[in-house]
Protein backbone atom coordinates (compact mmCIF):
# COMPACT_ATOMS: atom_id res chain seq x y z
CA UNK A 1 0.00 0.00 0.00
CA UNK A 2 2.70 2.38 1.04
CA UNK A 3 4.91 1.48 -1.87
CA UNK A 4 2.12 2.06 -4.39
CA UNK A 5 1.44 5.43 -2.76
CA UNK A 6 5.10 6.27 -3.03
CA UNK A 7 5.14 5.18 -6.67
CA UNK A 8 2.09 7.25 -7.60
CA UNK A 9 3.59 10.21 -5.76
CA UNK A 10 6.85 9.76 -7.63
CA UNK A 11 4.90 9.44 -10.86
CA UNK A 12 3.06 12.66 -10.10
CA UNK A 13 6.32 14.48 -9.47
CA UNK A 14 7.92 13.18 -12.62
CA UNK A 15 4.74 13.87 -14.59
CA UNK A 16 4.93 17.46 -13.39
CA UNK A 17 8.57 17.59 -14.31
CA UNK A 18 7.90 16.15 -17.74
CA UNK A 19 5.09 18.62 -18.28
CA UNK A 20 7.30 21.54 -17.25
CA UNK A 21 9.99 20.22 -19.52
CA UNK A 22 7.73 19.96 -22.53
CA UNK A 23 6.22 23.38 -21.86
CA UNK A 24 9.74 24.79 -21.75
CA UNK A 25 10.76 23.04 -24.95
CA UNK A 26 7.60 24.10 -26.70
CA UNK A 27 7.96 27.72 -25.65
CA UNK A 28 11.54 27.72 -26.98
CA UNK A 29 10.26 26.53 -30.33
CA UNK A 30 7.47 29.13 -30.30
CA UNK A 31 9.95 31.93 -29.62
CA UNK A 32 12.31 30.63 -32.31
CA UNK A 33 9.39 30.64 -34.70
CA UNK A 34 8.29 34.10 -33.61
CA UNK A 35 11.46 35.60 -35.14
CA UNK A 36 10.44 34.23 -38.53
CA UNK A 37 6.90 35.51 -37.98
CA UNK A 38 8.26 38.92 -36.98
CA UNK A 39 10.30 39.34 -40.14
CA UNK A 40 7.51 38.03 -42.37
CA UNK A 41 5.15 40.37 -40.53
CA UNK A 42 7.39 43.35 -41.27
CA UNK A 43 7.55 42.41 -44.94
CA UNK A 44 3.80 41.75 -45.22
CA UNK A 45 2.87 44.97 -43.43
CA UNK A 46 5.06 46.98 -45.78
CA UNK A 47 3.61 45.24 -48.85
CA UNK A 48 -0.03 45.52 -47.75
CA UNK A 49 0.26 49.16 -46.78
CA UNK A 50 1.96 50.12 -50.02
CA UNK A 51 -0.66 48.40 -52.22
CA UNK A 52 -2.65 51.64 -52.85
CA UNK A 53 0.47 53.28 -54.22
CA UNK A 54 1.57 50.23 -56.23
CA UNK A 55 -1.93 50.02 -57.73
CA UNK A 56 -2.33 53.66 -58.68
CA UNK A 57 1.26 54.48 -59.61
CA UNK A 58 2.64 51.21 -60.88
CA UNK A 59 6.27 50.80 -61.85
CA UNK A 60 6.72 54.33 -63.13
CA UNK A 61 6.78 55.32 -59.47
CA UNK A 62 10.41 54.26 -59.35
CA UNK A 63 11.64 56.54 -62.12
CA UNK A 64 9.12 59.36 -61.88
CA UNK A 65 11.17 62.52 -61.59
CA UNK A 66 8.76 64.75 -59.67
CA UNK A 67 7.53 64.34 -56.13
CA UNK A 68 4.65 66.73 -55.59
CA UNK A 69 2.18 65.56 -52.92
CA UNK A 70 0.00 68.66 -53.38
CA UNK A 71 -0.80 67.70 -56.96
CA UNK A 72 -0.73 64.01 -56.14
CA UNK A 73 2.32 63.27 -58.29
CA UNK A 74 4.75 60.79 -56.80
CA UNK A 75 8.06 59.86 -58.38
CA UNK A 76 10.72 58.32 -56.20
CA UNK A 77 13.66 58.92 -58.54
CA UNK A 78 15.06 61.99 -56.68
CA UNK A 79 15.22 59.97 -53.46
CA UNK A 80 16.70 56.88 -55.07
CA UNK A 81 19.36 59.09 -56.64
CA UNK A 82 19.93 60.93 -53.36
CA UNK A 83 20.33 57.67 -51.46
CA UNK A 84 22.72 56.22 -54.01
CA UNK A 85 24.80 59.41 -54.20
CA UNK A 86 25.18 59.86 -50.44
CA UNK A 87 25.86 56.17 -49.79
CA UNK A 88 28.44 55.67 -52.51
CA UNK A 89 30.17 58.97 -51.83
CA UNK A 90 30.34 58.06 -48.14
CA UNK A 91 31.69 54.63 -49.07
CA UNK A 92 34.42 56.12 -51.27
CA UNK A 93 35.45 58.54 -48.54
CA UNK A 94 35.41 55.89 -45.82
CA UNK A 95 37.23 53.03 -47.58
CA UNK A 96 40.82 54.35 -47.26
CA UNK A 97 40.29 54.95 -43.56
CA UNK A 98 38.56 51.70 -42.75
CA UNK A 99 41.14 49.66 -44.68
CA UNK A 100 43.98 51.56 -42.99
CA UNK A 101 42.47 50.76 -39.58
CA UNK A 102 41.91 47.12 -40.56
CA UNK A 103 45.51 46.72 -41.79
CA UNK A 104 46.99 48.55 -38.81
CA UNK A 105 45.04 46.53 -36.23
CA UNK A 106 45.23 43.25 -38.10
CA UNK A 107 48.80 43.30 -39.37
CA UNK A 108 51.07 46.09 -38.17
CA UNK A 109 50.10 46.26 -34.54
CA UNK A 110 47.66 43.54 -33.42
CA UNK A 111 48.19 44.05 -29.68
CA UNK A 112 49.49 46.58 -27.19
CA UNK A 113 47.96 49.67 -25.66
CA UNK A 114 48.10 51.75 -28.83
CA UNK A 115 46.07 49.29 -30.87
CA UNK A 116 43.70 48.80 -27.92
CA UNK A 117 43.18 52.54 -27.85
CA UNK A 118 42.43 52.66 -31.57
CA UNK A 119 40.14 49.64 -31.34
CA UNK A 120 38.14 51.24 -28.56
CA UNK A 121 38.00 54.57 -30.39
CA UNK A 122 36.56 52.81 -33.45
CA UNK A 123 33.97 51.07 -31.29
CA UNK A 124 32.99 54.39 -29.70
CA UNK A 125 32.58 55.93 -33.17
CA UNK A 126 30.01 53.22 -33.83
CA UNK A 127 28.34 53.86 -30.47
CA UNK A 128 27.70 57.59 -30.83
CA UNK A 129 23.96 58.05 -31.55
CA UNK A 130 23.21 59.23 -35.06
CA UNK A 131 21.15 62.18 -33.85
CA UNK A 132 24.30 63.51 -32.18
CA UNK A 133 26.26 63.18 -35.42
CA UNK A 134 23.44 65.10 -37.07
CA UNK A 135 23.44 67.86 -34.48
CA UNK A 136 27.21 68.21 -34.58
CA UNK A 137 27.16 68.14 -38.36
CA UNK A 138 24.49 70.80 -38.50
CA UNK A 139 26.35 73.25 -36.26
CA UNK A 140 30.00 72.45 -37.00
CA UNK A 141 30.35 70.70 -40.34
CA UNK A 142 27.77 72.75 -42.25
CA UNK A 143 29.60 76.09 -41.74
CA UNK A 144 32.88 74.40 -42.69
CA UNK A 145 31.39 72.99 -45.89
CA UNK A 146 29.82 76.35 -46.61
CA UNK A 147 33.18 78.11 -46.51
CA UNK A 148 34.65 75.36 -48.69
CA UNK A 149 31.84 75.88 -51.18
CA UNK A 150 32.43 79.64 -51.24
CA UNK A 151 36.08 78.94 -52.08
CA UNK A 152 35.10 76.50 -54.83
CA UNK A 153 32.65 79.00 -56.25
CA UNK A 154 29.52 76.86 -56.01
CA UNK A 155 26.31 77.96 -54.32
CA UNK A 156 27.13 77.94 -50.58
CA UNK A 157 24.22 75.96 -49.18
CA UNK A 158 26.34 74.25 -46.54
CA UNK A 159 23.74 71.55 -46.19
CA UNK A 160 23.43 68.98 -48.97
CA UNK A 161 24.55 65.66 -50.41
CA UNK A 162 28.24 66.28 -49.75
CA UNK A 163 27.80 67.18 -46.07
CA UNK A 164 25.56 64.17 -45.55
CA UNK A 165 28.17 61.92 -47.17
CA UNK A 166 30.90 63.25 -44.89
CA UNK A 167 28.87 62.48 -41.78
CA UNK A 168 27.86 59.09 -43.15
CA UNK A 169 31.50 58.28 -43.95
CA UNK A 170 32.52 58.81 -40.33
CA UNK A 171 29.58 56.73 -39.14
CA UNK A 172 30.22 53.70 -41.36
CA UNK A 173 34.01 53.43 -40.96
CA UNK A 174 33.74 51.10 -37.92
CA UNK A 175 31.74 48.42 -39.76
CA UNK A 176 34.23 47.80 -42.56
CA UNK A 177 37.20 48.39 -40.23
CA UNK A 178 36.35 45.86 -37.53
CA UNK A 179 35.32 43.18 -40.01
CA UNK A 180 38.45 43.81 -42.09
CA UNK A 181 40.58 43.41 -38.99
CA UNK A 182 39.03 40.03 -38.19
CA UNK A 183 39.62 38.89 -41.75
CA UNK A 184 43.23 40.06 -41.88
CA UNK A 185 43.93 38.18 -38.65
CA UNK A 186 42.76 34.97 -40.31
CA UNK A 187 45.56 35.09 -42.89
CA UNK A 188 47.71 32.00 -42.14
CA UNK A 189 51.15 33.08 -40.97
CA UNK A 190 53.02 30.44 -43.04
CA UNK A 191 51.85 32.33 -46.14
CA UNK A 192 53.24 35.60 -44.82
CA UNK A 193 56.43 33.95 -43.54
CA UNK A 194 56.95 32.39 -46.95
CA UNK A 195 56.82 35.79 -48.57
CA UNK A 196 59.12 37.32 -45.97
CA UNK A 197 61.65 34.52 -46.41
CA UNK A 198 61.71 35.27 -50.14
CA UNK A 199 62.82 38.76 -49.23
CA UNK A 200 59.55 40.65 -49.53
CA UNK A 201 59.19 43.89 -47.62
CA UNK A 202 56.28 44.44 -45.28
CA UNK A 203 54.39 46.45 -47.88
CA UNK A 204 54.93 43.75 -50.48
CA UNK A 205 53.63 41.10 -48.09
CA UNK A 206 50.52 43.16 -47.44
CA UNK A 207 49.94 43.91 -51.10
CA UNK A 208 50.60 40.48 -52.55
CA UNK A 209 49.67 38.11 -49.69
CA UNK A 210 47.37 39.71 -47.14
CA UNK A 211 45.11 41.76 -49.39
CA UNK A 212 44.54 39.11 -52.09
CA UNK A 213 43.85 36.51 -49.40
CA UNK A 214 41.27 38.69 -47.62
CA UNK A 215 39.75 40.18 -50.78
CA UNK A 216 36.30 38.70 -50.36
CA UNK A 217 36.20 39.45 -46.63
CA UNK A 218 37.07 43.09 -47.21
CA UNK A 219 34.40 43.26 -49.89
CA UNK A 220 31.85 41.88 -47.43
CA UNK A 221 32.86 44.61 -44.98
CA UNK A 222 32.19 47.21 -47.66
CA UNK A 223 28.77 45.69 -48.32
CA UNK A 224 27.84 45.82 -44.63
CA UNK A 225 28.94 49.46 -44.48
CA UNK A 226 26.82 50.15 -47.54
CA UNK A 227 23.82 48.53 -45.86
CA UNK A 228 24.31 50.84 -42.88
CA UNK A 229 24.68 53.92 -45.08
CA UNK A 230 21.54 53.20 -47.09
CA UNK A 231 19.32 52.92 -44.03
CA UNK A 232 20.83 55.69 -41.92
CA UNK A 233 18.14 58.24 -41.22
CA UNK A 234 18.64 60.89 -38.57
CA UNK A 235 22.10 62.28 -39.26
CA UNK A 236 21.32 62.47 -42.98
CA UNK A 237 17.92 64.05 -42.45
CA UNK A 238 19.46 66.82 -40.37
CA UNK A 239 22.11 67.89 -42.87
CA UNK A 240 20.88 66.97 -46.35
CA UNK A 241 18.56 69.93 -46.89
CA UNK A 242 15.32 68.04 -47.51
CA UNK A 243 14.21 69.12 -50.94
CA UNK A 244 12.44 66.88 -53.40
CA UNK A 245 14.29 68.34 -56.39
CA UNK A 246 16.69 66.13 -58.30
CA UNK A 247 20.14 67.11 -56.99
CA UNK A 248 22.14 68.91 -59.68
CA UNK A 249 25.58 68.48 -58.11
CA UNK A 250 27.04 66.77 -55.08
CA UNK A 251 26.91 70.09 -53.23
CA UNK A 252 23.19 70.59 -53.86
CA UNK A 253 20.60 69.80 -51.20
CA UNK A 254 18.55 66.67 -51.72
CA UNK A 255 16.74 63.92 -49.90
CA UNK A 256 17.25 60.23 -49.33
CA UNK A 257 14.59 57.54 -49.06
CA UNK A 258 15.01 57.36 -45.29
CA UNK A 259 15.03 61.12 -44.78
CA UNK A 260 11.89 61.72 -46.84
CA UNK A 261 10.06 59.10 -44.79
CA UNK A 262 11.25 60.72 -41.55
CA UNK A 263 10.15 64.16 -42.72
CA UNK A 264 6.84 63.50 -44.37
CA UNK A 265 5.35 60.37 -42.77
CA UNK A 266 3.42 62.18 -40.05
CA UNK A 267 2.30 64.87 -42.49
CA UNK A 268 0.98 62.50 -45.13
CA UNK A 269 -2.73 63.25 -45.15
CA UNK A 270 -4.13 61.01 -47.86
CA UNK A 271 -3.88 57.33 -48.64
CA UNK A 272 -1.76 57.42 -51.77
CA UNK A 273 0.72 59.86 -50.25
CA UNK A 274 1.17 57.72 -47.15
CA UNK A 275 1.38 54.55 -49.13
CA UNK A 276 3.92 56.05 -51.54
CA UNK A 277 6.12 56.74 -48.52
CA UNK A 278 5.65 53.19 -47.28
CA UNK A 279 6.60 51.88 -50.71
CA UNK A 280 9.87 53.78 -50.28
CA UNK A 281 10.28 51.96 -46.99
CA UNK A 282 9.61 48.65 -48.72
CA UNK A 283 12.28 49.37 -51.36
CA UNK A 284 14.70 50.39 -48.63
CA UNK A 285 13.94 47.22 -46.66
CA UNK A 286 14.45 44.92 -49.64
CA UNK A 287 17.67 46.60 -50.79
CA UNK A 288 19.29 46.59 -47.35
CA UNK A 289 18.22 43.01 -46.66
CA UNK A 290 19.68 41.78 -49.95
CA UNK A 291 22.96 43.66 -49.42
CA UNK A 292 23.30 42.42 -45.84
CA UNK A 293 22.53 38.85 -46.82
CA UNK A 294 25.15 38.84 -49.58
CA UNK A 295 27.69 40.33 -47.16
CA UNK A 296 26.97 37.73 -44.48
CA UNK A 297 27.07 34.88 -46.99
CA UNK A 298 30.53 35.98 -48.11
CA UNK A 299 31.77 36.23 -44.53
CA UNK A 300 30.44 32.77 -43.71
CA UNK A 301 32.11 31.26 -46.76
CA UNK A 302 35.35 33.05 -45.95
CA UNK A 303 35.53 31.98 -42.29
CA UNK A 304 34.59 28.39 -43.07
CA UNK A 305 37.38 27.91 -45.59
Amino acid sequence: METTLAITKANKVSNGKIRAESIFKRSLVVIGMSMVVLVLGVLLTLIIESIPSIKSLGLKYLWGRTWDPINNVYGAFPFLLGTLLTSFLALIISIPFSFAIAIYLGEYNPKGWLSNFLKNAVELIAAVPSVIYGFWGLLVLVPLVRSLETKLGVLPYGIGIFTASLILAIMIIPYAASLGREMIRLVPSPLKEGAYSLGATRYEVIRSVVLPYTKSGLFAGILLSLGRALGETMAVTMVIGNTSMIPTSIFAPGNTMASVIANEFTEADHTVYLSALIELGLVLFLVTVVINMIGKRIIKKFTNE
Partner: protein
Amino acid sequence: MDANIKYRVGKSKFVQGLIVFLAFLITVPLLFIIIYIFKEGISRINWTFLTHIPKPVGETGGGIVNALVGSILIVLAASVIAIPIGVMCGIYLSENATGRLSYWSRLSVDVLQGVPSIVIGIVVYFWLVKPLGTFSGLSGSAALAIMMLPIMIRSTEETLKLIPFSLKEAGLALGLPYHRVILKVIVPCGVSGILSGVMLSIARIAGETAPLLFTAFGNPYLNTNLTKPMQSLPLLIFNYATSPYDDWHDLAWGAALILLFTVLLLNIITKLTTRRWNVQL
Protein backbone atom coordinates in the same frame (compact mmCIF):
# COMPACT_ATOMS: atom_id res chain seq x y z
CA MET B 1 70.78 46.46 -56.74
CA ASP B 2 71.35 48.31 -53.50
CA ALA B 3 69.33 51.25 -54.76
CA ASN B 4 66.47 48.93 -55.61
CA ILE B 5 66.39 47.45 -52.13
CA LYS B 6 66.54 50.92 -50.60
CA TYR B 7 63.65 51.94 -52.80
CA ARG B 8 61.57 48.94 -51.77
CA VAL B 9 62.31 49.41 -48.08
CA GLY B 10 61.60 53.10 -48.38
CA LYS B 11 58.29 52.39 -50.09
CA SER B 12 57.38 49.93 -47.36
CA LYS B 13 58.20 52.51 -44.67
CA PHE B 14 56.24 55.17 -46.50
CA VAL B 15 53.14 52.98 -46.82
CA GLN B 16 53.38 52.02 -43.17
CA GLY B 17 53.50 55.67 -42.20
CA LEU B 18 50.55 56.44 -44.43
CA ILE B 19 48.47 53.62 -42.96
CA VAL B 20 49.26 54.64 -39.38
CA PHE B 21 48.35 58.23 -40.23
CA LEU B 22 45.05 57.30 -41.92
CA ALA B 23 44.16 54.84 -39.16
CA PHE B 24 44.64 57.35 -36.37
CA LEU B 25 42.88 60.13 -38.24
CA ILE B 26 39.59 58.52 -37.17
CA THR B 27 40.21 59.59 -33.58
CA VAL B 28 40.11 63.24 -34.67
CA PRO B 29 36.37 63.49 -35.41
CA LEU B 30 35.60 61.35 -32.35
CA LEU B 31 37.56 63.61 -30.00
CA PHE B 32 36.26 66.67 -31.82
CA ILE B 33 32.64 65.59 -31.31
CA ILE B 34 33.11 64.58 -27.67
CA ILE B 35 34.99 67.75 -26.73
CA TYR B 36 32.62 70.01 -28.66
CA ILE B 37 29.48 68.50 -27.13
CA PHE B 38 31.09 68.61 -23.70
CA LYS B 39 32.11 72.25 -24.07
CA GLU B 40 28.70 73.34 -25.34
CA GLY B 41 26.67 71.16 -23.03
CA ILE B 42 28.34 71.42 -19.66
CA SER B 43 27.43 75.07 -19.10
CA ARG B 44 23.76 74.33 -19.73
CA ILE B 45 23.41 71.56 -17.22
CA ASN B 46 22.26 72.52 -13.75
CA TRP B 47 19.55 71.54 -11.31
CA THR B 48 16.78 73.47 -13.10
CA PHE B 49 17.80 71.83 -16.37
CA LEU B 50 17.35 68.38 -14.86
CA THR B 51 14.08 69.04 -13.02
CA HIS B 52 11.97 71.32 -15.23
CA ILE B 53 10.12 70.91 -18.49
CA PRO B 54 11.10 73.06 -21.49
CA LYS B 55 9.89 76.66 -21.49
CA PRO B 56 7.99 77.97 -24.50
CA VAL B 57 9.95 79.76 -27.23
CA GLY B 58 11.17 83.17 -26.13
CA GLU B 59 11.61 82.35 -22.46
CA THR B 60 15.08 81.33 -21.36
CA GLY B 61 15.69 78.53 -18.93
CA GLY B 62 13.60 75.45 -18.56
CA GLY B 63 14.86 71.89 -18.63
CA ILE B 64 14.44 68.50 -20.15
CA VAL B 65 12.98 66.42 -17.33
CA ASN B 66 10.20 65.21 -19.64
CA ALA B 67 12.76 63.76 -22.05
CA LEU B 68 14.87 62.24 -19.29
CA VAL B 69 11.92 60.50 -17.66
CA GLY B 70 10.51 59.49 -21.05
CA SER B 71 13.79 58.03 -22.25
CA ILE B 72 14.27 56.02 -19.07
CA LEU B 73 10.70 54.66 -19.14
CA ILE B 74 10.76 53.82 -22.84
CA VAL B 75 14.12 52.05 -22.60
CA LEU B 76 13.06 50.18 -19.45
CA ALA B 77 9.85 48.97 -21.08
CA ALA B 78 11.78 47.97 -24.21
CA SER B 79 14.20 45.94 -22.08
CA VAL B 80 11.35 44.25 -20.22
CA ILE B 81 9.90 43.17 -23.57
CA ALA B 82 13.14 42.25 -25.29
CA ILE B 83 15.28 40.57 -22.61
CA PRO B 84 13.15 37.45 -21.94
CA ILE B 85 12.40 36.92 -25.63
CA GLY B 86 15.99 37.57 -26.63
CA VAL B 87 17.47 35.21 -24.04
CA MET B 88 14.94 32.45 -24.82
CA CYS B 89 15.56 32.75 -28.53
CA GLY B 90 19.31 32.69 -27.92
CA ILE B 91 18.88 29.51 -25.88
CA TYR B 92 16.80 27.97 -28.63
CA LEU B 93 19.37 28.75 -31.31
CA SER B 94 22.31 27.49 -29.25
CA GLU B 95 20.47 24.29 -28.31
CA ASN B 96 19.36 23.64 -31.89
CA ALA B 97 22.41 24.32 -33.99
CA THR B 98 20.96 22.49 -36.96
CA GLY B 99 17.42 21.96 -38.16
CA ARG B 100 15.07 23.69 -40.50
CA LEU B 101 13.32 25.98 -38.02
CA SER B 102 16.55 27.14 -36.41
CA TYR B 103 18.00 27.84 -39.86
CA TRP B 104 15.07 30.09 -40.72
CA SER B 105 15.04 31.59 -37.26
CA ARG B 106 18.72 32.44 -37.47
CA LEU B 107 18.23 33.89 -40.93
CA SER B 108 15.39 36.06 -39.62
CA VAL B 109 17.58 37.38 -36.83
CA ASP B 110 20.22 38.28 -39.44
CA VAL B 111 17.59 40.03 -41.55
CA LEU B 112 16.26 41.87 -38.51
CA GLN B 113 19.72 43.16 -37.68
CA GLY B 114 20.00 44.85 -41.05
CA VAL B 115 16.54 46.42 -41.18
CA PRO B 116 16.82 50.23 -41.22
CA SER B 117 15.44 51.66 -37.98
CA ILE B 118 13.02 53.95 -39.80
CA VAL B 119 11.34 50.92 -41.39
CA ILE B 120 10.76 49.44 -37.94
CA GLY B 121 9.17 52.75 -36.99
CA ILE B 122 6.74 52.51 -39.92
CA VAL B 123 5.80 48.93 -39.16
CA VAL B 124 5.18 49.50 -35.45
CA TYR B 125 3.06 52.50 -36.41
CA PHE B 126 0.72 50.14 -38.24
CA TRP B 127 0.88 47.44 -35.57
CA LEU B 128 0.33 49.55 -32.46
CA VAL B 129 -0.25 53.25 -33.08
CA LYS B 130 -3.01 52.97 -35.66
CA PRO B 131 -5.05 50.23 -33.90
CA LEU B 132 -4.77 52.02 -30.54
CA GLY B 133 -5.55 55.36 -32.12
CA THR B 134 -2.78 57.29 -30.37
CA PHE B 135 0.98 57.69 -30.36
CA SER B 136 2.32 56.16 -27.17
CA GLY B 137 5.49 55.52 -25.22
CA LEU B 138 4.67 51.83 -25.28
CA SER B 139 4.71 51.63 -29.07
CA GLY B 140 8.11 53.37 -28.96
CA SER B 141 9.29 50.69 -26.55
CA ALA B 142 8.02 47.97 -28.88
CA ALA B 143 9.97 49.46 -31.79
CA LEU B 144 13.13 49.69 -29.70
CA ALA B 145 12.60 46.15 -28.39
CA ILE B 146 12.59 44.86 -31.99
CA MET B 147 15.92 46.62 -32.48
CA MET B 148 17.36 45.11 -29.28
CA LEU B 149 16.45 41.53 -30.15
CA PRO B 150 19.12 40.70 -32.76
CA ILE B 151 22.02 41.90 -30.59
CA MET B 152 20.74 40.05 -27.53
CA ILE B 153 19.96 36.84 -29.40
CA ARG B 154 23.38 36.80 -31.03
CA SER B 155 25.32 37.42 -27.82
CA THR B 156 23.27 34.85 -25.89
CA GLU B 157 23.71 32.24 -28.61
CA GLU B 158 27.44 32.82 -28.98
CA THR B 159 28.00 32.75 -25.21
CA LEU B 160 25.99 29.59 -24.59
CA LYS B 161 27.71 27.78 -27.45
CA LEU B 162 31.03 28.21 -25.65
CA ILE B 163 29.87 26.44 -22.47
CA PRO B 164 31.27 22.92 -22.28
CA PHE B 165 28.83 20.18 -23.20
CA SER B 166 29.92 18.12 -20.18
CA LEU B 167 28.22 20.57 -17.82
CA LYS B 168 24.90 19.90 -19.49
CA GLU B 169 25.53 16.16 -19.53
CA ALA B 170 26.39 16.18 -15.83
CA GLY B 171 23.13 17.94 -15.03
CA LEU B 172 21.07 15.56 -17.14
CA ALA B 173 22.86 12.53 -15.69
CA LEU B 174 21.80 13.63 -12.21
CA GLY B 175 18.21 13.38 -13.40
CA LEU B 176 17.54 17.10 -13.58
CA PRO B 177 14.81 18.03 -16.02
CA TYR B 178 15.94 19.74 -19.19
CA HIS B 179 14.59 23.17 -18.32
CA ARG B 180 16.35 23.22 -14.95
CA VAL B 181 19.63 22.23 -16.56
CA ILE B 182 19.29 25.13 -18.98
CA LEU B 183 18.04 27.73 -16.51
CA LYS B 184 20.09 26.74 -13.45
CA VAL B 185 23.32 25.46 -14.99
CA ILE B 186 23.87 26.69 -18.53
CA VAL B 187 22.44 30.22 -18.30
CA PRO B 188 24.22 31.11 -15.02
CA CYS B 189 27.51 30.00 -16.58
CA GLY B 190 26.97 32.34 -19.48
CA VAL B 191 25.52 35.22 -17.53
CA SER B 192 28.40 37.58 -18.23
CA GLY B 193 28.05 37.23 -21.98
CA ILE B 194 24.27 37.60 -21.80
CA LEU B 195 24.58 40.69 -19.59
CA SER B 196 27.05 42.29 -21.94
CA GLY B 197 24.62 41.69 -24.78
CA VAL B 198 21.87 43.33 -22.76
CA MET B 199 24.00 46.37 -21.97
CA LEU B 200 25.25 46.74 -25.53
CA SER B 201 21.75 46.55 -26.93
CA ILE B 202 20.52 49.14 -24.41
CA ALA B 203 23.42 51.41 -25.36
CA ARG B 204 22.47 51.03 -28.99
CA ILE B 205 18.76 51.78 -28.62
CA ALA B 206 19.12 54.58 -26.07
CA GLY B 207 20.23 56.88 -28.87
CA GLU B 208 17.76 55.73 -31.51
CA THR B 209 15.53 58.42 -32.91
CA ALA B 210 14.10 57.16 -36.17
CA PRO B 211 11.86 54.39 -34.74
CA LEU B 212 10.41 56.83 -32.20
CA LEU B 213 9.34 59.50 -34.70
CA PHE B 214 6.06 57.76 -35.54
CA THR B 215 5.60 55.85 -32.28
CA ALA B 216 6.51 57.76 -29.10
CA PHE B 217 6.15 60.97 -31.13
CA GLY B 218 7.36 63.39 -28.42
CA ASN B 219 5.57 65.45 -25.81
CA PRO B 220 6.41 68.92 -24.48
CA TYR B 221 5.04 68.04 -21.04
CA LEU B 222 6.10 65.60 -18.38
CA ASN B 223 4.29 62.31 -18.88
CA THR B 224 4.77 59.04 -17.04
CA ASN B 225 1.89 57.21 -18.68
CA LEU B 226 3.22 54.74 -21.24
CA THR B 227 -0.03 54.76 -23.20
CA LYS B 228 0.32 58.48 -24.03
CA PRO B 229 2.79 60.23 -26.35
CA MET B 230 6.16 60.53 -24.67
CA GLN B 231 9.26 62.64 -25.12
CA SER B 232 12.71 61.06 -25.23
CA LEU B 233 16.23 62.50 -25.31
CA PRO B 234 17.03 61.69 -28.98
CA LEU B 235 13.64 63.01 -30.12
CA LEU B 236 14.13 66.21 -28.16
CA ILE B 237 17.60 66.70 -29.63
CA PHE B 238 16.28 66.16 -33.15
CA ASN B 239 13.31 68.50 -32.77
CA TYR B 240 15.16 71.27 -30.95
CA ALA B 241 18.38 71.08 -32.98
CA THR B 242 16.48 71.55 -36.24
CA SER B 243 14.43 74.41 -34.79
CA PRO B 244 15.58 78.00 -35.46
CA TYR B 245 15.49 79.11 -31.80
CA ASP B 246 18.66 79.60 -29.76
CA ASP B 247 16.96 78.75 -26.47
CA TRP B 248 15.96 75.41 -27.88
CA HIS B 249 19.48 74.83 -29.22
CA ASP B 250 20.71 75.34 -25.65
CA LEU B 251 18.38 72.63 -24.37
CA ALA B 252 19.47 70.34 -27.21
CA TRP B 253 23.16 70.79 -26.35
CA GLY B 254 22.57 69.84 -22.73
CA ALA B 255 20.47 66.85 -23.77
CA ALA B 256 23.12 65.80 -26.29
CA LEU B 257 25.78 65.84 -23.59
CA ILE B 258 23.68 63.67 -21.27
CA LEU B 259 22.80 61.23 -24.04
CA LEU B 260 26.34 60.97 -25.42
CA PHE B 261 27.91 60.34 -22.05
CA THR B 262 25.28 57.81 -21.02
CA VAL B 263 25.81 55.84 -24.21
CA LEU B 264 29.61 55.99 -24.08
CA LEU B 265 29.58 55.08 -20.38
CA LEU B 266 27.35 52.05 -21.04
CA ASN B 267 29.78 50.90 -23.74
CA ILE B 268 32.84 51.36 -21.56
CA ILE B 269 31.24 49.65 -18.53
CA THR B 270 30.25 46.71 -20.71
CA LYS B 271 33.78 46.36 -21.96
CA LEU B 272 35.39 46.58 -18.51
CA THR B 273 32.98 44.19 -16.81
CA THR B 274 33.09 41.55 -19.52
CA ARG B 275 36.86 41.68 -19.54
CA ARG B 276 36.97 41.05 -15.81
CA TRP B 277 34.45 38.22 -15.93
CA ASN B 278 36.18 36.60 -18.83
CA VAL B 279 39.36 36.40 -16.79
CA GLN B 280 37.50 34.75 -13.92
CA LEU B 281 35.72 32.23 -16.08
